[in-house]
Structures are given as C-alpha cells and as structure tokens.
C-alpha cells in the first residue's frame, strides 16, 4: 500500500452485506491489490433506495443524513453496485445542514468499475480467467452512471467493465441479442409486478443460454440475485459472479 494513496471508504449495500459477503470481500481485496487504502466504516447501513423507489423518499431523510455523516471523512466512497451509487448521487433528499457534505459526497462516490477505470485510471488488468462470460448490464449502472454506451443512443460504443474483462487471458465475451435490456428486478417491482418481473428475468436468461454463457456477471448483485433465483428454481446450469469476484480471482 502506498503511503500517499487516497483513503477509500467501502460502501457495501445492505443486501450485499447480508447475502453476498463474498462480493464485499472481493471488492475489498481487489481495491487493495490495486493499491488503495481501504476502510469499511462500521456504522453504515443502507442508502434508502428501496424506500425511495417505492414512493417514500420523504421518509429517507434520516437514512440519508446518517449515510452522509458516516462517509464524510474519506477521499472516495466506492460501492460494488451501480444502482446504490446512483441513488446516493441523484436521489438522496436534500439534507438541511449538510448541504456541503452532501455535494461533496455526490462527487466522491463511485461505482467500483468506474472507480478503477476513471479514478485509478487503469486501462487494463493483467490476469487470467478462462471462461465464457456473459455480461448483464444493470440499467442504473448503464443509463444512470453511463458505465457503458446504451443501445438507444447514437454514441460511440464503450463498456468500462468489458474493457477490464476482455484483457483477461482466456476470457471469452458473450455477445447477446439484446445487449442492455432490463432483467426485471426493479426493487419493489420484483414483488409488486411479480409476473412481469419473472418473465423479464426468464427472457434475459434465455438470451444468455442461447449464446452459451458459462458465467453470468454484472455490477449489481440485485439483478444477479433475481436472475440467479429464477435460474436456480428452474434448475439451469449457469454460474453467477459479481464483476468484483471475477477481477479479484483473475488477479491472483
């Protein structure tokens, strides 16, 4: 670890903390391998997105101010979820008395992959991952944080995760028919519109199956939890890993 390396606070989303500790560990180890000085502030809870997306943003003032205070003393906040990062950046209610801190947070919080490519300025990672990998583009990561170009827009194609993955020795990138269609998770949508949510998930899985994905990856465990839940129920032979897990494994 370099002495002058920036202080990075890990923000591990609540459901990752509870259900996918291995993703948190991979994120931490990966950032350390890349030379960051990483801390996990123990007082952290949740960003409040589930409430806000359900229409109760006004009830998240307490959650948001707690979040701002918890992460106030760090140079960067890094999170292995595009969706939660976007929520903090764009959907936190305005917190009276913490205006300056809130503005600062919006500019210093990064999704893991964009932190690696845009802040650490890492163009490629040397490593090995001999698998056929299908990428699920999370909507909030793509259309919200612009981690990759959208099929809807007339813009030069790019994909920050792909740039890192494709350089790994042996990794085969799966081209999908619908490169960036939503998986149907959508937070409370997953239960309030259960039938649609399941159908959308099945359709995404079918696209991966059809193109012989071996490992389905992405930057948001919420999408993956939903897709994996459907795949497991229907006994599909498909493995699921967060991008952090792949990169951390590959860099061993």
């Amino acid at each position: 670890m370099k002495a002058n390396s920036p202080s990075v606070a890990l923000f591990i989303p609540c459901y990752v903390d509870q259900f996918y500790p291995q993703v948190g560990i991979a994120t931490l180890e990966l950032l350390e391998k890349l030379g960051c000085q990483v801390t996990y502030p123990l007082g952290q809870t949740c960003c409040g997105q589930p409430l806000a997306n359900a229409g109760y943003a006004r009830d998240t003032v307490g959650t948001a101010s707690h979040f701002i205070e918890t992460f106030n003393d760090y140079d960067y906040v890094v999170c292995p979820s595009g969706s939660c990062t976007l929520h903090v950046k764009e959907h936190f209610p305005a917190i009276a008395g913490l205006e300056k801190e809130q503005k600062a947070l919006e500019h210093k919080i990064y999704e893991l992959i964009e932190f690696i490519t845009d802040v650490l300025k890492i163009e490629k990672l040397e490593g090995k991952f001999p698998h056929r990998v299908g990428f699920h583009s999370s909507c909030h990561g793509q259309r919200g944080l612009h981690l990759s170009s959208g099929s809807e827009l007339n813009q030069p194609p790019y994909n920050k995760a792909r740039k890192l993955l494709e350089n790994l020795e042996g990794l085969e990138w799966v081209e999908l028919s619908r490169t960036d269609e939503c998986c149907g998770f959508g937070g409370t949508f997953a239960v309030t519109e259960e039938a649609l949510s399941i159908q959308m998930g099945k359709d995404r899985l079918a696209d991966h199956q059809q193109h012989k994905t071996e490992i389905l990856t992405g930057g948001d465990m919420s999408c993956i939890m939903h897709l994996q839940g459907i795949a497991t129920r229907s006994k599909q032979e498909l493995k699921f890993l967060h991008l952090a897990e792949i990169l951390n494994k590959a860099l061993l």
Partner: protein
Amino acid sequence: MTHPENATEFLKDSQKSKWHDETLWFVRDKRDKVSKGIPEWEQLRELASGIKDYVLANLADYLEEFERNAIKNGIIVHWAADSEEHNRLVLEILQQQNCKAVVKSKSILTEECHLNPYLEKHGVEVVDTDLGERIVQFLNQPPSHIVLPAIHLKKREISELFHEKLHTEKGNEDPAYLTQAARIHLREKFFGAKVAITGVNFGIAETGEFVVCTNEGNADMGVHLAQVHIACMGIEKILPRRKDLGVFLRLLARSATGQPITNYNSHFRNPSPGKEIHIILVDNGRTAQLAREKFRNSLKCIRCGACMNTCPIYRRSGGFSYNSTVPGPIGSILSPGLDLKKHSSLPFASTLCGSCTDVCPVKINIHEQLYEWRQEVTKTHGEFAKGLSMKLANGIFKSPLAYKISGSMMRNALKSLPNSLIYHPLNIWGKNRNLPDPPKESFQQWYQKNRS
C-alpha cells in the same frame, strides 16, 4: 383492475405475449438502426427538446400568435377547456352541416376525449379510417398503442373480424388481401363523408398552419373529399417557426417506426375555395400539467410511441394493461395528472430502467418523472401498511445497531425456517424465484473478525 393484475393476465397467453414483445422489439431495433444513420441524431433530440421547452415557457404568446395567423388564413378557431366542450364543439359543427356520418383519422386527443361514443350517442356514425383504428373500432376496443393501434391482434383474429364485418373469404389471413378489403370499404366512406376529423401533429405559430402526418394517406383522403375539416389539437402541439418542422419531422417517423419520414406530411394553411377548416384548441388538463413543475415537460411529447416500443414492461403486458388512453411510459406520467386515483398503479409499472428516456426524441425524463409520481401517489393513495413497513425500515437503516440485529435475524430466519414457509405463496419473491443461500456471516461480521 390494476396494472399488475392486467399484466399477469396478458402473460398467461405466453405465445402471444412473446410475439408481442418480439414484434415491438423489432420496431425499436429499426428505430435504433435508422437513428444511427443520422450523425446529428443526439443534437436533433437536444434541439427538439429545447424548442419544446421554449414553447412551453411562452405558450400563451404562441397560442395567440397561432390563432391570429390561422384566422388570417381563413381557419375557424375554437377553444375547449375540457373534453366535454371539445366534444360539444365537434357535434355543433356536424349539426350545422347536417352531417350524420363522419370520417376520422388517427387522433389520440379525440380518444382522450372519448369523442366517438359521444358522437354515436348523438346519432353520428364515426368511421375511424386508419386501418389499425378501424380494426379496433370494429371490435369496440380502444387502440392498444398510439402508433400501432392493433398491435395486440394476430392476423387470424383480424381475418375472422373482416370475414364478419367486410365479408372477406373465411380463413384468408393474407395481410395484403385484408388491407385491400379495408381499402374498398374505407374509400366508400371517404367518398361519402361531408365532414372529416383529423388530429394535429404540429401547429406552427408563425404561419398559422398545422401539419398532419400519416402513412396511409387516410387523413388527406378524408379532408380533401369532405366539405368541412375539423382538426383537434392539444394546446401543447405548437411550434414557433416553420423551419422547426425540419427538426421534428426528421425525428418523428424515425422514432416511431424506424422509417425516415411518414409518406404524407400535409401542411394545412387555408381551406380550399368554398370549404371550411375548423381547429379546436383543447386544454383538458394540459394547463394543470404545465403548472406542475416536475411534470411540466411531459407536455413536450410528440406521440411517436418510441417509449412504448422500448419499454420491457409495455412489450410484455400490452397496451390495455395500463387502462389509460395513452399507455406505456409516457402514459404513466401523463395519466396520473388527469386522475391520480384511477392511475395510481401506473408509476409503479416500471423498473425505472430509463430506456424510455433515452429513446424519447424530445428528451422527456420519463423514468425520473415515474419516480416523482411514485412520491406523489404515496402521499395520497399509499396503502397504510406499506407506509408503515417502510417507516419501520427507515428506522432500522437510520440506526446501525437496529440494522445489525434485524439483518442477522433475517439471515437466521432464512437458515432455520423450513422451505415450505419461505416459499409460501404469500412470499411473492419466492413464488418463482429462489432466495440466495444465507451465508454464515455478514460482510460486516467478516470484516470485524478479519480486518479490525
């Protein structure tokens, strides 16, 4: 019925819903391809958005300028505060003409005002002349899509319908054959109609003219044969300058169906000698929407339907699932402004994926407005229990200790409860999805053990 109930019903016919999804995806894909052939595409969207924003910021002035110039051109201008007044104005013109049968080209505004049932109640036969609209009219259905009104129907169903209504051969499902039968039927109606009704795509303030776009030519067939043309126009359809049409006509058809332009783009400035053009400027909730700062720019919509074609929800639930004149994402931000209670489930019929916003040719931030409408809906129509559980959750997330306790309780519960309980039908998540295997410890516990 709420949107989830309707969607569940639509998905039951899995073959048809798959077809519906794929057909609309095909249209969206055509839109993607054709838009990528225009290097300045994103700039055009920015321009269109800017022009519309400017119009909305100066709407009263532009409406007056439009009216002044239209009158100068010999167009008769009417104003309608709501749908009732709009319908009454149309009926009055028909009665003056002693007209008992009218042809009407596609107009979402007249659907919004429920003009057809109103006129029929007053003894006027209305013939919708867009092929798709005629099909759904035969079935007593509203359009299920604003550009592709009969997209929910298979050709077999249309063949059966035409056999009954137009006496086509039984079992002949050839679209060309069925279209030809409709052509004969509709041309007879065009040549017999004294009055024709159209919608309006754009009204130009600077010239007092208005533009109507079709591919079938049905609007023109109607109005040029009729004695009187009634054009029904929402007050938000104004553009300042004629040259603005260059921007909008380049975007409209490409966004709607992936074609470079509609085949007929008619500019009506004055009536033919001896004939009449009436234009009805309709508010019907638009000034109220203009007053809502967060939702104002939904009035920029040019009704291209691109947000429907791209919406993963719309494609898999069909237009009728929204139970709103304008379905899909744009309908879900327009309709709550008209009747919040009736349409309260619509802002939730979305994953907030944002695709609608990125295809919108006038850059309406549709998914952000869906999010904002959710905040409005829960203020007045949120179920009590949902509100309570959310408040509770906020209490937990505010307090690290409470969060830790409830989190480990959740994990422990998952470990110790029998599967039959976890996957109880009441647990909606688990109906068709497994839950993740509960880990032995949370990340936080691991971190405390290993790193602190």
